């Protein structure tokens, strides 16, 4: 067994044996999927009696074909939280120190933290999208299975991006302060990612801020792929991939620097 495999297995076991990881990584996104579908039902029924020609206020963003990609991204934000907690907790005790004294190198640590959470990320996306498909069938909304499968693939850079953010925050902050910071990023990602409102209908600074940050591009890439609108996917996919690559490099540098500082 390689050092990276051994460390990955340990981290995977630590994650899957923490009941909170099920609650937040799987339970919460599924609950939001159901709740937002119910909200959409309510809005649809409240606008059904409008006279012909009246402007419908129904925000179709909560319809399952739009919601699926958004909730998949929302769920991944919790992956960041748990990656962050694993790294920060290891640092706060003497566990990392013990491992520093073994033949493990920084690459083993980083890969060992990222690989198991990547696997969990894939499982999380598959479950979220599968649940979306079931809701679509119940609600009789058209949702292409091929589009869902491809949108899962399109979300891979986003999985990497949130894991890299988790490693970065866990490296830079203590296990006391890191969760608070992650909560801010989770709120920002869901708000500025246009998961709960149509960011394109806004303007000015808010729209610019949404466009500069990666979250909305991850959501749009997933939504457009879901809708089989491949022509417009590429720019969003490129931006989310670029952010994933950049944040991965930054998190590796940060972890290596921290390790070097710890060993001074």
């Amino acid at each position, binding site marked *: 067994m390689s*050092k990276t*495999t051994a460390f990955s*297995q340990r981290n995977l076991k630590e994650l899957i044996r923490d009941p909170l990881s099920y609650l937040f990584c799987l339970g919460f996104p599924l609950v939001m999927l159901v709740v937002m579908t119910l909200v959409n039902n309510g809005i649809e029924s409240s606008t059904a009696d409008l006279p012909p020609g009246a402007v419908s206020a129904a925000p179709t963003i909560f319809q399952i074909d739009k919601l699926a990609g958004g909730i998949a991204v929302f769920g991944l934000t919790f992956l960041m939280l748990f990656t962050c907690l694993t790294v920060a907790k290891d640092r706060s005790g003497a566990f990392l120190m013990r491992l520093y004294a073994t033949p493990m190198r920084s690459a083993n640590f980083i890969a060992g933290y990222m690989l198991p959470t990547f696997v969990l990320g894939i499982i999380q996306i598959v479950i979220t999208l599968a649940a979306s498909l079931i809701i679509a069938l119940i609600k009789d909304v058209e949702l292409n299975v091929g589009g869902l499968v491809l949108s899962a693939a399109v979300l891979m850079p986003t999985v990497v991006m949130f894991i890299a953010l988790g490693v970065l925050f866990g490296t830079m902050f203590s296990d006391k302060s890191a969760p608070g910071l992650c909560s801010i990023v989770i709120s920002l990602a869901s708000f500025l990612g246009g998961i709960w409102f149509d960011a394109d209908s806004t303007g000015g600074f808010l729209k610019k801020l949404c466009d500069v940050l990666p979250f909305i591009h991850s959501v749009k890439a997933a939504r457009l792929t879901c809708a089989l609108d491949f022509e417009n996917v590429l720019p969003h996919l490129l931006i989310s991939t670029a952010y994933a690559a950049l944040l991965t490099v930054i998190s590796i540098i940060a972890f290596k620097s921290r390790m070097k500082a710890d060993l001074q």
Partner: protein
Amino acid sequence: MYAVQTKGLVKKYKTKTAVSGLDLAINEGEIYALLGVNGAGKTTTIRMLTCLSKPTDGECFVCGKNCVSQMSEVKKLTGISPQDTAVAENLTVTENLQFICGIYEFSAEKTAESVERLIKLFSLEEYKNSRAKTLSGGWKRKLSIAMAMIGEPRVLFLDEPTLGLDVLARRELWNIIEKLKSKITIILTTHYMEEAEKLSDRIGIMINGELKAEGTLSELEAQTGEQGLENAFVKIAEGGKE
């Protein structure tokens, strides 16, 4: 060749000197106790000898290998049980041991053999399938030392191994450490005089980063003119040697 040797070892943190000109020579198979009050430099010394900290000046060697220039070799020769128990809390006792076997890239056969041997040596059979977080302090400490021994180290560093343990758990751990005597070189730091007296072949007393006295219990008693390690330690710590 000494199991552990330091030559004029110095460690400075900005304005504070944690270890100052430390010269140690510890023989193979010896149990060597480092005594000192808090902040005396014991843990810093262990950190340098286990490649967890770079010396500011001087040199340190484990089994003739330089702790700075031959770090990889030194890491294969040493094991450390830190002050905190440092175990994976959600893994079982067996899984913790298997995990460290994986870090040393043992084969499946060697992993099974090592885990079984250490579980037996540390009497962990009853708890082998229990998660580490459910263990008491004493059992966790045993697991921590067992994890330090997975890599079959020639030199084992135990940083305050019985800190916070009750009398029974401490005695049990002493028995295990005594079993290891002469098979492996052990350097332990402790605040407990009784522990140093009971376990160690030689004792080093560090005060403010310096090795103020060293020797067997009777040698330290002779140096200070006091009876018992505690009295000898207090006299040395207060600056009086005959």
